[in-house]
């Protein structure tokens, strides 16, 4: 006897629907590159997943249709720059699906968030391609020419917003002179925030991780700014820059690799937030969500073990 609530496939689809708003905003600012990356990612995810399922001698159609591979691909594709060469997303997705998920036994058995594993892999391997974002809206033909290496993209791109901030801060420039409120990033974050609120309302994700995550970011950013307010980003900027909202509602909440107990989820989310700010501030990479999530994935068994809820009569 089962409830008539959402099943696993429907949950995956709902998460994909919730991403639509953020992706649309992203499209408005960066153009067709965003869509091309997603299509490339999803296609390669389905191909790679089918091949490895065949190698493992599993039912291909049942597993493909659960939507988890597509979701991983979309999350990775929207995390990488819209004008990255086509092979970046293909390699990243293949790594995520093969090493991040299937080698552990497929859906439900992976200790790490596959999309973030793919992202970290790409960031380490191809730092240049992973940090160059378009500075303007690109039409379909422009975007496809750039992505498929037919056009030199020098004139169309710049460093990521967070990278920019960091470089300027390290050069000793005053924060106030910088155009900090990068409009595009703020709007994209709002898009993902609304998508996240939709997931909360549909009870597809629990509030614990996103809230603790954002709280972790704010508290850590405040702590750092107490000591050095001139050299570092204020808390409110941390919230609307980079992949904060995507991370809070769509990445840290991946149920498979996250903590599962109510208390554990609070600890898990909070520490990811703290790590994100630390990596953004002191790390070599502009964005810290992938590394923060992966680091905390490792601690999940420990957190879960020590945060077991009280059992009736014990």
């Amino acid at each position: 006897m089962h409830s008539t609530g959402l099943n696993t496939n429907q949950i995956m689809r709902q998460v994909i629907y919730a991403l639509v708003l953020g992706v649309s905003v992203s499209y408005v600012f960066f153009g067709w590159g965003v869509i091309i990356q997603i299509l490339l990612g999803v296609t390669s995810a389905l191909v790679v997943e089918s091949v490895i399922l065949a190698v493992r001698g599993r039912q291909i159609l049942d597993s493909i249709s659960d939507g988890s591979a597509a979701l991983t691909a979309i999350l990775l594709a929207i995390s990488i720059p819209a004008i990255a060469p086509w092979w970046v997303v293909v390699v990243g997705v293949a790594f995520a699906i093969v090493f991040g998920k299937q080698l552990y036994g497929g859906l439900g058995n992976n200790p790490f968030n596959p999309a973030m594993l793919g992202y970290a892999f790409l960031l380490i391997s191809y730092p240049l391609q992973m940090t160059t974002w378009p500075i303007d809206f690109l039409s379909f033909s422009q975007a496809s020419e750039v992505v498929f290496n037919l056009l030199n993209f020098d004139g169309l791109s710049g460093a990521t917003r967070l990278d920019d901030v960091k470089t300027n801060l390290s050069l000793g420039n005053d924060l106030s002179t910088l155009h900090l409120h990068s409009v595009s990033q703020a709007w994209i974050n709002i898009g993902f925030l609304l998508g996240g609120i939709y997931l909360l309302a549909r009870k597809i994700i629990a509030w614990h991780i996103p809230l603790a995550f954002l709280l972790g970011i704010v508290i850590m950013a405040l702590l750092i700014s107490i000591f050095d307010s001139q050299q570092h980003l204020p808390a409110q900027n941390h919230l609307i820059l980079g992949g904060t909202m995507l991370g809070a509602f769509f990445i840290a909440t991946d149920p498979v690799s996250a903590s599962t107990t109510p208390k554990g989820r609070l600890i898990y989310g909070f520490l990811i937030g703290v790590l994100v700010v630390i990596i953004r501030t002191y790390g070599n990479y502009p964005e810290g969500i992938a590394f923060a999530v992966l680091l905390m994935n490792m601690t999940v068994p420990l957190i879960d073990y020590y945060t077991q809820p009280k059992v009736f009569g014990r």
Partner: protein
Amino acid sequence: MLNFEFPGGIKIDNPYPIERVEIIQAPLPTSVVLPLQQRIGEEAKPCVKVGDRVLTGQVIAQTEDAFCVPIHASISGTVSAIDKQLIPHKSGLKSTCISIDSDGKDEWISEQGCGQDFLHCDRQTMIDYIQKSGIVGLGGAGFPSHTKLSKAFDCHTLIINGTECEPGIMCDDALMQHHAREVIRGVEILLHITGAQKAIIAIEDDKHEAYQSLLMFNHNARISIQQLPTKYTSGAEKLLIKALLSIEIPSGGFAADSGVVCQNVSSTKAIYDAVIDQRPLVSRIVTVTGNALSPINVEVRLGASFEHIINLTDVNNKAHDYRMGGMMMGVDIDTIHMPICKITNCIFVNNKTQKHIAQECIRCNSCNPVCPIGLLPQQLYWHAKSENVEKCIDYSLMDCIECACCSYVCPSHIDLVSYFSFAKALCKKQTAEQHKIDIARERFEFREYRLERNKQERAEMMAAKKQALKEKMAKDKDKNQEQKDKIAQAMARVKKSKEDNA
């Protein structure tokens, strides 16, 4: 302030509600099959032979196990067979049963109970009547009532469970609506037996008619009728106690240890029959429900086949899925040619559907918030699947009440509770084996110790003997010397006197 709540659980409405809850009397079955194995304890031994004529209510099988109750003929007629037959159990195994062919007369054996004026009887007499009449928990657990009652010495509160354990089942609702007087009298008997100061009849707030009719017949100040929010698993004894009294029975403990006794409302009515008239339990009310028919509640003789009462409904003639017990904790069955027994509270007849295929667990943890015990089903599933008994016990598997709330909400349609009952059996087996190993080891160690001790004792004894011998010898030597001295002295004296004389 009590909020009549416990954690977890799910609000599930009756999937097939009916306008008016009536009790239909099923016609006398032409034959009955009565299993000798009861829910708990050893198999009863038949005290009739094939060909014997039996009366309704006559004891046909007895057991010496004080835990068990005798088995009564549920119709009058002739014993037609004593052999192995399919019984309604999740194992799907056969077990020894007594079959009786009806003579259509339904002649009762004549017995006398305490009578309507029961207050002059002492508690042991009443408990004896309850045992002799074969009363067990009719809610589904089948725990013998007399065992529970004879433990209840220092009891302050009596709880009558009228919460109807699972959505869809209406037999207790029907009983409370139509036998409210007997229920209230039954509660008075139980108050007398247990010596409790107060009794609470717990009833879910969606059963208005039952609540009203109980209120109408209750004139006893010690009995209160308490409505509870309708939520699945509120029928579980420990959770009900928690909701009503805010007492949390410790894990592994019994309600009686905390001064509470729980009885099902149908059992209470059966206890009334047993004590007043010494009328044995030969029938029960069964809900027949599902989407293939209009649900009914039937009072039917025990041992009649499932088919016998399903035929009383307007069941359609499509292919069906059958299930006995509730929609949550029940068991899917392949055949309806099985006898109704004391714990058969409900039969589901549904149009055949495709079963959901289970997917992988995505650790979404939907299962934890609905677990009334506060377990982590998703982690237990992981450990149960890998048969890691130690981890299962670590995560309190043995506290699982198998209510199936987790299976119900699982988006991957994993039948979690099946994994848990399997792992529980595994744990029990391993614990039993470990116990045996421990005993063997203890015995071995004691033997070693005993041999060692014997050896030492013998050595000590030898040493002591040796010592004693030595001492004795030394003493003897001294004595000899003394004697020698004496002799010498005597000789000297003799010599002297001789010399003197000479």
